[in-house]
């Protein structure tokens, strides 16, 4: 089936079996390997992407359901030269350690900041509850999101 979707702001077409996972099509045909596979059953959030602006696990979405829709992966957040505040603060606040959860964390955190410019720590933790991290103990990640919210409110958004 020919699938047309908006991917990171650009129209893309991919001809593939419609019941393949969005995760596999992103990583293979579309060559966007920033989205990682963790558990493969919707538990860990490592494969989190935005589908029409909402956070979803790409391991549980079939590509046939993405025709005509808007998908944003971690590659669509910012470029190396123009990082978003959330990407900068994950670096400066130590939000990333081994890095496997980081793409999903960034997507969930950015989605939160787009709908809530000044989240409380509890709201940050709820927004990230579907993204598991085995390294940081989460404190540095929460600090990174808090710092990104401040940076955005003081005009630091790139």
């Amino acid at each position, binding site marked *: *089936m020919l699938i047309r979707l908006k991917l990171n702001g650009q129209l893309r077409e991919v001809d593939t079996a419609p019941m*393949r996972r969005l995760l596999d099509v992103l990583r293979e045909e579309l060559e966007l390997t920033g989205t990682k596979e963790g558990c493969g*059953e919707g538990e860990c*959030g490592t494969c989190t992407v935005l589908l029409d602006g909402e956070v*979803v696990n790409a391991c549980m979405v*079939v590509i046939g*359901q993405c025709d005509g829709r808007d998908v944003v992966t971690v590659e669509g957040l910012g470029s190396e030269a123009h990082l978003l505040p959330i990407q900068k603060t994950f670096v400066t606040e130590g939000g990333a350690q081994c890095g496997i959860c980081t793409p999903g964390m960034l997507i969930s955190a950015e989605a939160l900041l787009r709908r809530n410019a000044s989240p409380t720590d509890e709201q940050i933790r709820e927004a990230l509850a579907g993204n598991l991290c085995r390294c940081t103990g989460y404190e540095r990640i929460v600090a990174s999101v808090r710092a990104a919210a401040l940076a955005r409110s003081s005009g630091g958004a790139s």
Partner: protein
Amino acid sequence: MTIADLASVPFERAGDLASLCARVGELADSEQPFVLLAGGTDWMVEQELRKPFAAGAEPRVIDVSRLDKLREIRLEGNVLSIGAGVTYWEMRNSPEVRAHAPLLERMARDVGAIQIQARGTLGGNLATGSPAADGVAAVAAYDAILVVQSRRGVRRIPMSELQTGYKASTREGDEIFVAVEILLPGPDARWYWRKVGTRRAQAISKVALGGVARVEAGQVVRCGLGMASVAPVTALLPRTRELFLSTKLEKIGPVQLDKAVDSDISPIDDVRSTGEYRLHVAKSVVRDFARALGARV
């Protein structure tokens, strides 16, 4: 097999509700296996556990995730209608749900993490029939009516007449869940939601209880209960409900209440918990609900 092995499964997209009903009728007539796919939070995960399909025995998957007709939330008089394809994320953010059925908003916050809330739907959970579904327990507390549709027309099934056994129901093979209707209990109604699991997010419940009640002069005059993960179906706790409706709150004692719960459920051991613990928690949350209504238990 895993979700990654589904590539050979045939897929089609439903255009509108009428053509979907016709297509489902045709597939039911020819006894071809099919699945209506919304968010996939139940069905996709179930595929992880099953043996691979025999060649040619794969079900047809029909994508219903974009049927606008299933995604409406409507308030008509004192009936709130929630489309079967409304996601839990949409439910918790709906002004109508927040204002008129706050138990549903509260429950929706507990359905997995936001990634799961953004995909999971009431219709999907009703169709897969898991007795652990939070959403089904919550709508049971409102004595919901399930609206199903087929090429033969529309039919309404009271929640109390839906479930016939583990993942079995009175819905016919060619009928599609299209909406859940709730007769609103009024702004002064009390509601209760408690989910007990291994952690706050992403956990399937060991026990969950939804409760809705109206109390007039110390007497419960409307009561609905839905309990998840304690029976082969969502438990409606009929004897406990009868106790609430037949006895002044001041006369309800803890022993009586525990006995009613005992007679309503016989939970089993499984990977998430033990039957003994579940029964203990079930009694505790029912007492908590009773206390919230004003009983001294």
